[in-house]
């Protein structure tokens, strides 16, 4: 018998279950793109039959980090840039949990960049949503890793001399097996992409364009957007790495020129997830490790039985 009966529980899930009953006043500004992420998750999770207590949402620091204050799942609001290592470990400890990590562009592509690259490389079976508003919002408008070159802010008053980071291309090179970009202004696509990302067995990276109406007023609101799957102007095979790389590069290039391309960029359904790889080499238990601590009949190995080599 499981100690975690919320996992896989078969019942109708109501969308409202993901809204905290005593809802804290949102700290997001009116018109903030972060509402779009929250909304798409509130739609996607019940549609996938997930109940709030089998989901662990792990966030970093920044406006995006407040996501799990308003999404009523199990939540872990961690520290700046560190949502991924916490999320990965929770998934290894209990692979049956649905683990979603989230943070901003500064959080994920800047301070947490090392974790992002290695999580993608290892292909952990988690969903990683990056609220990309091309700015540091909560600290009041400093230049971020995705801010366009020339972007002026209080910390880069003459305009940024740095070329923005390429989130999609970097993720592809690092090894992510599902990569998509969506935008808060495109709720239907966002919901579908979030659903696919959650269902994907492996590291699913969603670069979510979330306009910042307060600190990035000069930037576009990511409209009009183009869905590369819907548009006749674009065609690529999402399973083809080379084609994906090409269109990702174009997408990143044109964003700062005012063209907002979104959609699925790369999907690799063949690659085993990290826990499958780890299991294959004999370093992952068959049963979720967390279950064992609640099993009164579990047998625990003792160091006393390891002493032969020391005698």
């Amino acid at each position, binding site marked *: 018998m499981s*100690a*975690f*009966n*919320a*996992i896989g*529980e078969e019942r109708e899930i109501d969308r409202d279950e993901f809204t*905290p*009953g*005593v809802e*804290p006043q949102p700290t997001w500004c009116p018109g903030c793109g972060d509402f779009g992420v929250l909304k798409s998750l509130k739609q996607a999770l019940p549609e996938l039959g997930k109940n709030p*207590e*089998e989901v*662990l949402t*792990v966030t970093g620091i920044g406006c995006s980090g407040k996501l*799990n*204050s308003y999404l*009523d*799942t*199990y*939540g*872990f*609001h*961690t*520290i700046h840039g*560190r949502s991924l*290592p*916490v*999320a*990965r*470990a929770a*998934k*290894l*400890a*209990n692979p*049956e*949990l649905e683990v979603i990590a989230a943070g901003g562009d500064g959080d994920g592509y800047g301070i947490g960049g*090392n*974790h992002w*690259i*290695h999580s993608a490389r290892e292909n952990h079976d988690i969903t990683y949503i990056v609220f990309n508003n091309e700015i540091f919002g909560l600290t009041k408008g400093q230049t971020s890793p995705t801010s366009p070159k020339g972007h002026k802010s209080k910390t880069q008053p003459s305009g940024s001399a740095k070329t923005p980071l390429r989130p999609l291309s970097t993720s592809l090179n690092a090894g992510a097996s599902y990569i998509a970009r969506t935008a808060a202004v495109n709720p239907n696509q966002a919901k579908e992409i979030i659903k696919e990302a959650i269902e994907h067995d492996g590291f699913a990276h969603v670069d979510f364009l979330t306009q910042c109406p307060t600190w990035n007023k000069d930037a576009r609101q990511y409209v009009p957007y183009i869905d590369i799957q819907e548009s006749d102007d674009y065609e690529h095979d999402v399973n083809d790495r080379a084609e994906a790389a090409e269109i990702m590069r174009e997408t990143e290039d044109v964003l700062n020129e005012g063209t907002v391309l979104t959609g699925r960029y790369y999907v690799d359904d063949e690659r085993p997830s990290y826990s499958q790889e780890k299991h294959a080499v*004999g*370093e992952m*238990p*068959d*049963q979720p*490790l*967390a279950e*064992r*601590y*609640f099993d009164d009949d*579990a047998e*625990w*190995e*003792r*160091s*006393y039985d*390891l*002493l032969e080599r*020391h*005698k």
Partner: protein
Amino acid sequence: MSDDELIWRIAGGSGDGIDSTSQNFAKALMRSGLNVFTHRHYPSRIRGGHTYVEIRAAEQKVQSRGDGYNFLLALGDSFARNPQEEAYYGNEEIKPLSENLDELREGGVIIYDEGLISEEDVEELDLEERAEENDWHVFPLDLRGLAKDHGREVMRNTAGVGATAALLDMELEHIEDLMSDAMGGDILEANLDILHEAYETVNDEYDFEHDLRAPTGEHDAEQALLSGSNAIAYGAIDAGCRFIAGYPMTPWTDVFTILSQNFPDMGGVSEQVEDEIAAAALAVGASHAGVKAMSGSSGGGFALMSEPLGLAEMTETPVVLVESMRAGPSTGMPTKPEQADLEHVLYTSQGDSQRVVFAPGNIEEAYEQTRLAFDIAWDYQIPAIVIYDQKLSGENQNVDVDFFDREPSPDLGSTLTEDELKEAAHDASGKFKRFNYEDAEDGVAPRSIPGQKGGRYLATGNEHSPVGHIEEDPDNRVFQMERRLEKLEKIREELDEERDSTQTYFGPDEADYGIITWGSSQGAVAEAVDRLNEQGHSVKAISVSDMMPFAETEVTEFLESVDEAMVVEMNATAQFRGLIQKELGRFGDKMTSLLKFNGNPFEPAEIVEGYEVNLADEDRQPDAQVRIEPAAGD
């Protein structure tokens, strides 16, 4: 200093197999009924560089490396890069023979491999003259040639062991058994040949004029030879830890390696990750999801764990971290011991953060206090740190096998089951009051685990309300802070009232003079106290393990009971004495410090000398490379 003890030093280059050879020889001595203690000295490089292991063996218990050594097996450094005197690191080839030769005791025995160490180099050492002066007995043997004739050059260690056994009048039985356990086939056969050949050659060709022989002894119970790192890893296993995340760094890597090798067979998970921030964050994440988890590092890597440590404190996520100190600051001396990270471990991370810190002083304590760290961490939902050092990490000592015959304790402490969650407090919307200060006991509010029905809440590093929402209300802030701070007081009460003391005492109950130490300096202090009392001095010692919450009552009683005290620690700034003064707010004028920070651990004689100089109130520093730091006001 005992006459009937052997301190055998095997010296060579890194990569010469010093470690495995010494490990087997130590086991052979242990199997013959002796108590053994090993000390390992090595450089931070893969091949070459002077390295040695000392094995001290005696009939009675041995607790430190002892003073000097009385048998040297100098293999020569087969990986020496610059065998010239004028090279920056000197002539490395001769170092195994020349380095610390002054520490060889009178009457000592030297074997050196004349197949590798050149006659010219030896001449420059004036070895003959010095041997005469010190009554050393020198045996130049062509170990390399002998090994080559019967097998391969790399087997010259075996030839050295065979020659050692002959000169010490030891039987080969235990050595042969251990070799048979470790290898097989042609390799075993060649090694056995070499062992016998060397043994017989030495017996046939030399008249023994030295008095040194292997001591004899008998054990009452079966023994196991373990390092401090083994003990910490085994303590974790028996505490039910099955998740470890880490990043390699000397000397912490030993614990990480041992658990990584054992966990797959135990259904556990080990993760080597991108950096130490991730390592500690993974341990926190695994613990949050319901697993007993740990991480660890050494000074520089531990510095990166500062933030996840604070997160664990604020979110009340139990976790155990181990910190294996090496000489700092910065990269310092990576393979040398020091006890200079105490303040780093006690105070790192922002805010009024609190954690539990234990500093075991020997191998048994390393096992027990690691278990204790897990118990306390999971009962009180607080990070617990085991701080130790390169010395305890790598030194091997024999322990009664029965010591480990204990029940495991995988219990998750103050964690609720789904049934218990039904009875627990929830807010109006059904959210579990995870951080409920109203019904917390000893500051602890029981927790739920993701996936449990009826247990959802938000864990956050922000200040938070009972259900975990970010909350900056002043009343809530004060309640939550006070509840969390209460835990350390309660832990202190439990340690004082319900558990065996983790402090260790040496010497008579009543004495005029007190020595206070912590961590791995314990053994040398214990032996120094014995010697001083044998010499008619009135000295006792306490070795303190509870750094936080501090062992206030025991240290106060100890200091009140003596006229004067000397705090012995391996660092330059008297960090532990500073802690005592901070915690107790007095005794500053009673405590002198004896400090050592040259990269080598204390020898008992250095502590004896420090005591003598200090007691005589002489205005000088000891002759040994140690420092006396006077008491406040002196």
